[in-house]
């Protein structure tokens, strides 16, 4: 009982120290993901993109997170007028 409680406290402490760091690193990763997504979708968003043929084949791979992404970018609804997700 005592040992279990101590372990729980230990885990809580470990989590206390890890959480903000994990958050910072995850945020850095997300910023790069967002940029990547922007590059992949730029043609569809109306930004001329010399690599359009190659971004097209990446579209399916960034698709699943598209809704969360455009909301994060401050766009309430899908910016692709011919593709709806919400």
């Amino acid at each position, binding site marked *: 009982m005592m040992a279990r409680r101590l372990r729980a406290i230990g885990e809580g402490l470990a989590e206390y120290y890890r959480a903000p760091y994990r958050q910072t690193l995850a945020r850095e990763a997300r910023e790069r993901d967002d940029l990547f997504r922007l590059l992949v979708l730029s043609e569809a968003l109306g930004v001329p993109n010399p690599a359009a043929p190659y971004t097209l084949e990446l579209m399916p*791979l960034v698709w699943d997170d598209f809704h969360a992404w455009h909301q994060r970018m401050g766009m309430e609804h899908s910016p692709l007028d*011919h*593709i709806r997700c919400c």
Partner: protein
Amino acid sequence: MLLNLLSGRGLIFFGGKGGVGKTTVSASAAAALARRGRRVCLVSTDPAHNLGHLFEREVGPHPVAIIPNLTAIELDPEASVTAHLSEIGGFLHQVMPRGGRAEIDRHLERARHAPGMAEAALLDRIADLAAGIGRDHDHLILDTAPTGHTLTLLALPEMMTAWTDGMIANRAEADRFSARARDLATGGASSNDPRADAIRATLMRRRMRLAGLRDHITDADRAVFVAVTTPERMPVQETLTLGRALGAGGIALGALVVNRVHGHAGQERTDERLVPLDREWPNLPRSILMQREAEPSGIAALEELAQDF
């Protein structure tokens, strides 16, 4: 002499101003190499195809046997784009809800006309064919489109390699940060993100292809670019432009073919016309092809032309 040079190179480009006889010259070189027992694949990337006329038979997007060891292809950018898009469409259909399929098709239809789309599709096919050198054939001979198109096409691998490198660097950073964030998760290490792996794999595949083609094109031991011209002012000027632009892109001219030279009476005049090229590339191997009474047509005529090489 030219044939010896060519037989040592797997990837052979013929280029020059429209109407100087690129198709005739490349087809004749192809036939001659095939006759020497080399397996040759001759490809036309010029939208205005005339390999079919030359060989007096139907040539299409799939290899057609002309004579033993020689196959010919007329690449159709339009068809390549369609193939490329339908592959992507298949992916998208899988991940999108059923109701959205019509919208995906509409989106892809619009993408069809994006700048660079045709070149990219063409390049893809060329990369495939170039990868077959040594396996399916010994030589890939490309009868290229007029100068502008060709330069765009040849600059593309370099440009797009840089682009994929940028994207790959982005992924490497993002993946590293995600991995470090996962290392700090309480529940121990979780498995890799399958989506990140798929993105990286797609990019790496693309990069391998583009960089492979770029390295192949710029390797003077494995590839050669033959400029075709006629002893006239405009084609010579364009050859100069073409050669310089290729040089800037890391591709050196390997040989020059001067086509349709008029008998002995015109010899001096011909030399005079070619002075700018001599000055620019004094040691460039050169073949002179005399003007024929009629434009060569059919295998026999092409092989006869090749004797002048």
